[in-house]
């Protein structure tokens, strides 16, 4: 089997595949709980796979609805008795970590069918996720050093953007290109358009870099349209072993490689380099593929700078050259010269209830099944890269390489 770059993918890579997906369609719920979103999404994803609750023997949960008891509480709610329970909670990247761990558990034959779920009512709960002061629930050393300065979530990413501009000459217009591309894709996705309406976005249409640069400054140099939305939402993903995958209702989407990493404040650290610089090469090496083999790049777009720094760190272009790389609409689904970026509309323009990582896997699967609303013809390989936490301080990253037969 030949990838675009002529790299051989061996059959033994077909260990585990995503066989079921569901993205909860509503971005503004009224009275529905996050646990209900998780359960309903799980039911739909299992149906999509042609499976039932009884088939699930591995449960992955980031703990967003049951902090400290991730997995156990949701196993009870779902009425499951899994043999593998994984409560890895590293913010928005949790679901790429879960996929990596499910692949390992299935390879070890500890499990055959893994369930990943996510549910959030972030929009209904509060409106200020990006500019709230850090809560500092527990006095930790890092919290004690940082919370008195009130650095917002957006401010943390802005520190990276400011440094990227300083170090490499990146411009606001170049960062804006990422928001322009994701909106271009969102406008082709009816669920994304409905999200923009439900969240009362003004002037719902394709945007230009000039629109982004004209939007109001939130934390220099990041402007409103450099920032993701805050929505409600959730979803589920079912991962199965090769034997189950062969009998699945839909074409399996294989997990070909995974990598994990964390990044945090260190004296002298270059904050323009994300944890993806570690997780990416590990994942690509395991898959036996290269960035240029990727038809689809599902990159965690909390902010435009997140995508630019990660594209560089994954090796789509050299460090510091992200501005020139994204220019001219290169990452649109209908343009050659690069992978299609966040073809569902991304967190910037479709769905970001706080921890977006699950949707990266879901849209990658849609593309490799041929179901996207911005479909790349014959898409064969995709990378899903989750980034959780705060890029300017501490964050976690996981890279997953996916492919179809």
């Amino acid at each position: 089997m030949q990838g675009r770059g002529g790299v051989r993918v061996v059959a033994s890579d077909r260990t585990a595949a995503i066989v079921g997906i569901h993205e909860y369609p509503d971005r503004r719920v009224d009275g529905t709980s996050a646990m209900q979103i998780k359960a309903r999404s799980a039911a739909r994803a299992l149906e999509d796979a042609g499976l039932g609750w009884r088939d699930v023997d591995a449960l992955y949960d980031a703990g967003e609805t049951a902090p400290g008891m991730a997995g156990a509480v949701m196993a009870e709610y779902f009425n499951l008795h899994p043999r593998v329970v994984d409560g890895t909670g590293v913010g928005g990247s949790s679901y790429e970590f879960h996929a990596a761990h499910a692949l390992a558990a299935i390879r070890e034959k500890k499990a055959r069918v893994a369930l990943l779920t996510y549910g959030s009512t972030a929009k209904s709960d509060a409106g200020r996720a990006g500019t709230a002061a850090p809560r500092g629930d527990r006095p930790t050393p890092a919290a004690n050093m940082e919370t008195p300065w009130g650095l917002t979530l957006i401010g943390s990413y802005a520190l990276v953007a400011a440094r990227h501009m300083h170090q490499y000459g990146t411009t606001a217009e170049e960062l804006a290109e990422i928001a322009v591309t994701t909106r271009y894709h969102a406008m082709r996705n009816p669920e994304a358009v409905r999200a923009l309406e439900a969240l009362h976005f003004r002037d719902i249409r394709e945007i230009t870099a000039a629109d982004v640069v004209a939007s109001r400054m939130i934390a220099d140099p990041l402007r409103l349209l450099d920032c993701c939305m805050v929505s409600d939402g959730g979803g589920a993903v079912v991962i199965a072993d090769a034997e189950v995958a062969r009998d699945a209702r839909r074409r399996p989407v294989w997990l070909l490689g995974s990598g994990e990493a964390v990044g945090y404040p260190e004296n002298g650290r270059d904050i323009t380099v994300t944890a993806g610089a570690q997780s990416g090469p590990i994942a690509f090496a395991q898959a036996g593929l290269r960035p240029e083999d990727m038809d689809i790049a599902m990159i965690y777009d909390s902010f435009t700078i997140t995508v630019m720094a990660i594209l560089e760190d994954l090796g789509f272009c050299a460090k510091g050259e992200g501005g020139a790389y994204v220019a001219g609409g290169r990452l649109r689904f209908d343009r050659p010269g690069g992978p299609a970026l966040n073809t569902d509309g991304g967190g910037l323009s479709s769905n970001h209830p706080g921890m977006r990582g699950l949707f990266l896997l879901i849209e990658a699967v849609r593309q490799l099944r041929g179901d996207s609303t911005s479909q790349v013809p014959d898409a064969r390989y995709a990378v899903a890269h989750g980034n959780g936490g705060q890029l300017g301080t501490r964050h976690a990253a996981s890279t997953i390489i996916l492919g179809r037969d």
Partner: protein
Amino acid sequence: MTPDIEAVRPLPRFPEPDTEPFYARCREHRLSYQTCRKCGAIVFYPRSHCTRCTSTELMWHDSEGRGTIYSVTIMRQHGHPAFRARLPMAVALVDVDEGFRLLAEIVTDDPFSVHIGQPVTVAWITEGEVTLPGFTPVAES
């Protein structure tokens, strides 16, 4: 009159044994950092173990309090009333000359002039019982 609790910025909370000595020194207007007695590594933020070797013997030092802005953002919007009252507010990563980096507010009447590479010096901020190490720009040579 009862003070408006909402208008007080979030402050470090104790007991928290790693940062308590740091803030005790801040009250004496000493900006402090640690080095390892065994390998000499700079350890910051404060801890009770060396982050390079396996030593658990660290010693405290006082910094001269001078540094350079590594990166900066100017917050224009904030969900917390104490910070909303201070907007626009410059928050920076400061590389202190002795070799450690910390996050801090840049205290200035002109936040929009604050920039990467700018020299700064410590500017103590008193909030009730707590003294915080802010920084302020100094003339560029």
